[in-house]
């Protein structure tokens, strides 16, 4: 019964992402395909948010490449449980590479939301935070309250990483808010915002 009650108390995903991105400052954001990308767009489209529209299983590794290239900037990967499960090896790779400026936050609704709300392995008890902790990510935690989300936001901006959190969110489907979908545009606006116009002259 306790489990049922905690299910009812799962957090609204849009409020979680809104809170994580509040006052984002210099933060660089990679959003995994589907609902996490829509959540990031709902919190306010931004040139330094890179929403993925494909490459399922790759979000955390895009974050790693970016974090290694920009060691003085904080990088936040926001992705889904299904997306993370497809690329679990990335947690081992990140644990070994140890980027101090990278945080991976999974919005864990225990479902493949985009494709009809089928259960993922986390619904059957697979514990992503425990996997991440075993891979050497710091303070790998499961987050269940908005107060913890607030603390997570502080950690994403300040703590030495790599950080990991799985935020248990309700399996609802908020209204679609779509970011731009032309990949070349998303790449160019991100690089220009980060590197200036020399982004177009890199040789």
């Amino acid at each position, binding site marked *: 019964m306790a489990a049922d009650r905690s299910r009812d108390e799962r957090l609204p995903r849009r409020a979680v992402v809104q809170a994580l991105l509040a006052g984002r400052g210099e933060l660089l954001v*990679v959003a995994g395909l589907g609902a996490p990308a829509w959540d990031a767009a709902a919190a306010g489209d931004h040139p330094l948010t890179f929403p993925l529209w494909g490459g399922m299983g790759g979000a955390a*590794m895009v974050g790693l*490449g970016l974090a290694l290239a920009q060691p003085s900037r904080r990088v936040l990967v926001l992705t889904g449980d299904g997306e993370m499960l497809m690329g679990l*090896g990335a947690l081992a790779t990140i644990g070994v590479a140890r980027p101090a400026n990278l945080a991976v936050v999974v919005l864990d609704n225990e479902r493949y939301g985009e494709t009809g709300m089928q259960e993922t392995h986390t619904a059957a008890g697979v514990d992503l935070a425990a996997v991440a902790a075993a891979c050497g990510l710091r303070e790998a935690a499961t987050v269940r309250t908005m107060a913890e989300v607030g603390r997570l936001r502080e950690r994403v901006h300040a703590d030495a990483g790599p950080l990991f959190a799985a935020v248990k969110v309700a399996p609802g489907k908020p209204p679609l808010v779509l970011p731009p979908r032309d990949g070349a545009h998303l790449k160019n606006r991100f690089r220009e915002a*980060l*590197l200036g116009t020399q982004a177009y002259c890199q040789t």
Partner: protein
Amino acid sequence: MPMNENHKDWPRALYDLLGREGIRQVGVVPDAGHMELIRLCERDAALRTVRLTTEEEGVALALGAWLGGEKCALLMQSSGAGNCVNMLSMLAACQAPVAMLVTMRGDHGEFNPWQMPMGKAVEPVLEAMGVAVSRADRAEDVVPLAEGTLRIAFNTLRPAALLLGQRLLGAKTFKE
């Protein structure tokens, strides 16, 4: 290039080329054919060599590196090119570069029948995903072709691969 250059030491020449062309991140899943190049990369503090669990991680790594202004090269075996397929969609959709140096199995002189299906598929599969592919079978061709591969990748913003054939590497004999 000096006439007396030792073409046989193409791993060292490739390593020098990566440095010259400003590669900053190298994603690696080991293959015997890349042993020496991997060793050189891992010892170089100016390169960030990232050990991967699967080659497709490297494709995503390359996109992140480019978003952050860095060039990435990937070292993998031909089987690993198969692991990259869907992830290469990201580079095509975003017009983002990566240079893949692929040591072949399943071509000239292969001993292991299980290597043949992917070996035969590498080139058409990579081409189908928009990767510009070339192939070196002789030591003296490795550096010029690798130079061309890097230029295509980072000047024309797409994935490019150089396949290093077993004619060059020597086919694995399973006798040691």
